[in-house]
């Protein structure tokens, strides 16, 4: 219980830190003004920083324009995305109608539950084989280690395209085994596809954990299992976090396979999203689509935003540089 409260408070603090930037920005602005006034910093120096920051912000605006655009579209019920009034509908006409529709009238919530089922299976299954696998590849010598590693590296990025390539074969396989239209199997399938890349990623991360920690623990009397639980796992946290995010995405975002294997009462969010574009007539209902897509992408985007430092650490191929 106390552990739980500790976690929640630390997560709370972490989010708070992410969100208190306006105050900190104001503080540093005040300090800067003071510095300039007291002559500790030249105006030119401050200006350089200002220009740099503004440039970066501008770049960001350009890059994230499509995001802004969907956001605006989702709020512009009644004035289509392709509106000839321009890209930006009149903000006064913004409304939440589309969100209401998505949440209460479309099959969003139903599909979201399906997606969650698939994703939990994907994450559970893949994590339970990726972590031991990565550990073994990083820390142990065994028959065929190099072979497996090579295979995994070769297959790191082949998963997605491969599934499309083997789509019909997969379908045949699943139908013959009576496993089509089965969220459980779909989840396991995603997990299987996520194994090579994520195992390899986590292994690279674990490689950078110095062996001396393990040795220290062994000398301290820890057994193999205790070493893993007390040393390796906690130290791999950023790597595991990244892998967690990636496997989550693997299950959450995939669409082609889901569309092939599932029937419409079992659709996951990505397929529902697609059927908004493809199904029911010729025209894309942009507003609904946008609102649906945003609600669909929001959780993952939020996780990314908040887990940024983990992601940066976890993807830091420190050992690879040079």
């Amino acid at each position: 219980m106390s552990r739980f409260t500790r976690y929640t408070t630390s997560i709370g603090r972490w989010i708070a830190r992410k969100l208190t930037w306006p105050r900190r920005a104001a503080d540093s602005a005040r300090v800067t003004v003071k510095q300039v006034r007291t002559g500790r910093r030249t105006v030119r120096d401050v200006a350089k920083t200002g220009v740099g920051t503004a440039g970066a912000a501008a770049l960001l605006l350009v890059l994230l324009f499509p995001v802004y655009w969907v956001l605006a579209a989702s709020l512009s019920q009644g004035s289509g995305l392709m509106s000839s009034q321009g890209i930006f509908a009149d903000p006064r006409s913004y409304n939440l109608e589309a969100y209401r529709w998505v949440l209460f009238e479309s099959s969003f919530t139903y599909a979201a539950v399906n997606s969650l089922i698939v994703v939990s299976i994907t994450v559970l299954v893949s994590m339970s084989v990726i972590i031991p696998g990565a550990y073994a590849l990083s820390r142990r010598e065994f028959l065929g280690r190099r072979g497996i590693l090579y295979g995994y590296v070769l297959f790191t990025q082949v998963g997605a395209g491969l599934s499309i390539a083997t789509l019909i074969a997969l379908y045949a396989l699943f139908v013959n085994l009576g496993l089509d239209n089965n969220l459980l199997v779909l989840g396991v399938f995603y997990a299987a596809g996520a194994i090579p890349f994520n195992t390899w990623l986590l292994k690279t991360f674990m490689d950078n954990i110095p062996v001396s920690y393990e040795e220290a623990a062994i000398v301290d009397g820890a057994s193999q299992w205790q070493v893993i639980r007390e040393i390796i796992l906690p130290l791999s946290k950023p790597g595991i976090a990244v892998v967690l995010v990636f496997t989550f995405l693997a299950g959450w975002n995939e669409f082609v396979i889901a569309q092939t294997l599932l029937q419409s009462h079992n659709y996951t969010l990505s397929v529902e999203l697609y059927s908004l574009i493809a199904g029911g007539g010729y025209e894309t209902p942009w507003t609904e689509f946008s609102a649906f897509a945003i609600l669909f992408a929001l959780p993952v985007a939020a996780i990314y935003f908040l887990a940024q430092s983990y992601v940066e650490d976890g993807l830091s191929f420190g050992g690879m540089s040079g």
Partner: protein
Amino acid sequence: MSSSLRNRVVGHGRERLPFDVDSVGLAGLLLVAPGAVLFLSFMLFPIAFLIYLSFTDATHAGTVLGGEASIIGLENYAQLFTDPQFWQSFGVTWLFLAVSLAIKVVLATGIAMILTHARVLGKRYMRALVIVPMGFPAIFVITVWEGMFSGARYGPLNQFAGTYNSIVSGFVGVLDSLLFFVTVSAPELLLADLPIQWLSGRWSAFAAYTITEVWLAYPFMVIIIVSALQDVPMDLHDAAKVDGAGYVHRFFNVTLPAIKRPVLFASILTAATSFQQFLIPFIFNGGGPSRQNELLILYGYREAIELHEYAFASAIMVTAIAFIGMFMWLAVKKGNLAEGIDSA
């Protein structure tokens, strides 16, 4: 001497725990086995089945599922390699891979450099924002970009082009009123011919694919490069400054070499994904116009699902897998990712 030193440096990572070798690695094997088996069982069968199909005369899905296909040998491959559409797809796929990769690398490096620069305040937040698109479902991103590339006059990009046009003509207009002896009109060359039919022209559609692909992959690159940049020792920059190197020289002599391997690594990974890009052409314009931009996987997909040529499509897919496998294998070898395997 230097080689033994090197061994020690490289060997550092190879240290294993004591008494590992005795146990014949059984424990290790047991730990990787579930993952490997799971992966193989879901990948091996479909590939084998695909290869089998590519030797048959299966046409529509019924013949595949009903097992009515019969083996016809290498005919599909013979047909494939004489099909101009195959070479068209093959070429455009590689081109797509190369162009998008080049842009990705340059763009991501630029962004990463800016978002780690000392002169930029709030860069952590900006970095957090910049990677957010990584979490968007591809289907979502691609549909949005399809909208961006709408050929209508009021498609977002066309509107930008319109704004650009009016800026140019406005500027020329100002010139015109300044020099009142000559009449200056906006040169045609500078003006975009609106509306631009992004997805109907061969190269403009290609450009649209490329831009979307870049947008899909840049966050991953940015993160990796940012991490790499943060690992570049400040000391090296200081040393180069003292050595008399300016910004550009420092970039090429200190920054670039330090991020080279991570960038190479990210490039290989994203290039492999680009090679298998399917959704962009599928959603945008089905590889059009006139199948000129039909990327390889889409080519296979269409042959199977829309044109009911499963066996032929299987031959395409097998070829694609073979190429991607070769590409990865070469990349792993040449790009020295194998070193990552051995040492790391």
